[in-house]
């Protein structure tokens, strides 16, 4: 039953010589090809891997990597036409560490172009479909990584998370999605989207597997000056630590059922009901769970704050995409015309719209009102949550107000649901807080996720708490039902 096996189970099979790394790769490769046409998880599927035996839990185990991590000699497109032929000449630190651990790369996964987007529909090689229901999105931007784990092609996949790009698709795909503290893992070789918000993050099918990956990837890297000194801990060793008396809070203004009592949105109400049922289970596990009130105006400002900061930083970060040093060369007489043409042809409409928004925000006349005020709101929000973390060990909230949307669904972008329930995960990026999503129920035969966020540098406790909560959800190690396919 390879598709459902966890990292630990595969490790055991390898150690007992019940299987080999070659056999595991063959299974993953076969599944990757089998599902590709229907779900489109990959930009590149590796057919000839390089194997290395290493003393690591990940040695010999297949994984997938988002196509915005630099991989020397392997096409890396960021799912954008402007990088469609780009073959890096250096390794990202994440890829290098995984290679050194003997992990086996199965493929580079599709993302929303340049990691900007939350739908999995804007990559240059087409849309990614949700394995639980092909008429729905898996979410993004780490869409292909999420789909590859939900399909059971690989037991884990690496993504990146700037606003919720791993933790939201995890909810839509019935997966665990973990984003450690900002600086815990090096971003060297990860294509920058919004540098003050960008995190390395990953999908697994249980919390313990997330701890294993964190143990391999964490640590200081002189190539990324914001990385933290390693705390010297093995998070796997302490994953079962006692959580008795740990205190969780949820924010009334985001998930109080009373706020939505007149809503016709049955999915939303069911999500909230199940969330409050889960809180009761947390209490029976020994957690203290309390409701906390936060200024609604501050919470409503989370999404526009995110848009301002991320679009402004992205506009600047992507200025190097000119088609001169790399990428398709544009047409024109002057260098300027060549760059103009390359960028016109190389970026999709959505990316251009985001860049224009970023440019608008950075114009001298708008900087104070938009960009700097967004940075000020960021501080107020982070200060408020940090203050609450003096009393509480974690923040628990539904990761989304519903299930994965249909491809043709539209959302009311000024509604409470959109501004509060759909976008609060960006708080984790504003403050660099460790944050994890895990599946906790089904609504209309689709998975829903709960998110737990903790204090900066307290990754160990966040994993402990999530691991404990996972034990009562009844949704550990799930994969999408896609027929009788197994290898």
């Amino acid at each position, binding site marked *: 039953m390879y598709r459902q096996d966890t990292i630990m189970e595969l490790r055991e099979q390898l150690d007992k010589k019940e299987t080999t790394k070659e056999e595991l790769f063959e299974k993953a490769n076969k599944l990757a090809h089998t599902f590709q046409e229907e779900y489109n998880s990959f930009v590149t599927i590796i057919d000839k891997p390089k194997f290395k035996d290493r003393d690591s839990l990940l040695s010999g185990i297949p994984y997938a990597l988002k196509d915005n991590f630099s991989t020397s000699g392997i096409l890396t497109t960021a799912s954008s036409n402007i990088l469609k032929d780009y073959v890096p000449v250096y390794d990202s630190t994440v890829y290098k560490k995984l290679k050194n651990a003997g992990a086996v790369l199965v493929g580079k996964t599709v993302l929303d172009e340049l990691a900007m987007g939350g739908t999995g529909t804007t990559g240059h090689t087409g849309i990614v479909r949700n394995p639980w229901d092909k008429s729905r999105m898996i979410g993004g931007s780490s869409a292909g990584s999420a789909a590859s784990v939900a399909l059971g092609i690989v037991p884990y996949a690496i993504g990146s998370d700037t606003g919720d790009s791993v933790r939201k698709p995890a909810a839509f795909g019935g997966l665990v999605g973990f984003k450690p503290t900002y600086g815990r893992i090096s971003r060297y070789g990860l294509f920058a989207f919004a540098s003050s918000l960008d995190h390395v993050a990953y999908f697994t099918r249980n919390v313990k597997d997330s701890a294993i990956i964190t143990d391999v990837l964490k640590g200081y890297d002189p190539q990324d000056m914001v990385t933290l000194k390693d705390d010297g801990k093995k998070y796997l060793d302490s994953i079962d630590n006692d959580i008795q008396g740990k205190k969780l809070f949820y924010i009334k203004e985001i998930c109080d059922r009373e706020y939505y009592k007149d809503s016709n949105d049955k999915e939303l109400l069911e999500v909230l009901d199940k969330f409050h049922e889960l809180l009761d289970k947390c209490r029976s596990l020994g957690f203290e769970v309390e409701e906390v009130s936060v200024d609604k105006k501050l919470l409503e400002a989370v999404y526009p704050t995110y848009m301002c900061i991320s679009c402004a930083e992205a506009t600047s970060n992507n200025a190097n995409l000119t088609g001169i*040093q790399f990428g398709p060369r544009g047409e024109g007489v002057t260098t300027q015309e060549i760059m103009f043409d390359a960028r016109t042809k190389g970026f999709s409409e959505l990316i251009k719209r985001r860049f224009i928004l970023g440019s608008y925000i950075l114009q001298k006349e708008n900087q104070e009102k938009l960009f700097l005020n967004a940075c000020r709101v960021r501080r107020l929000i982070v200060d408020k949550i940090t203050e609450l973390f003096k009393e509480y060990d974690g923040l628990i909230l539904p990761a989304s107000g519903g299930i994965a949307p249909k491809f043709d669904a539209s959302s009311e972008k000024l509604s409470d649901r959109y501004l509060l329930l759909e976008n609060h995960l960006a708080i984790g990026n504003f403050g660099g807080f460790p944050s994890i999503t895990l599946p906790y129920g089904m609504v209309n035969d689709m998975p829903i996720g709960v998110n737990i966020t903790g204090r900066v540098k307290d990754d160990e406790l966040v994993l402990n708490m999530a691991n404990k909560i996972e034990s009562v959800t009844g949704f550990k190690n799930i994969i999408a039902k896609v027929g009788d396919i197994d290898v």
Partner: protein
Amino acid sequence: MIDKELLKKYARLLMFEMKEEEYTTLQEEFDVILKQMDLIGNIQNISEVEPMTFPYKNTDVVLREDEVGDYLTVDEVLSNAKYQVNDQVKVPRVVEEDI
């Protein structure tokens, strides 16, 4: 509604062009976005707050030692450039010979 000409100006500054209908979509999108942006202005005494540009105070940050490390060869650096001449990326002539 935001002036379409203004949006075109921003696109030119960013060195790309969009189709006419794409500007119309963007104009409509700006309407919603600007209403969302107003929510930032709703926060009281916001101007008194110090802008935050980094998630938290990181006391670990140090500049790395100024030591020679691994570096790319010229061939590697140029491997993705479509046009090259004399170990450099080739671009159109800027200075005219006649001048």
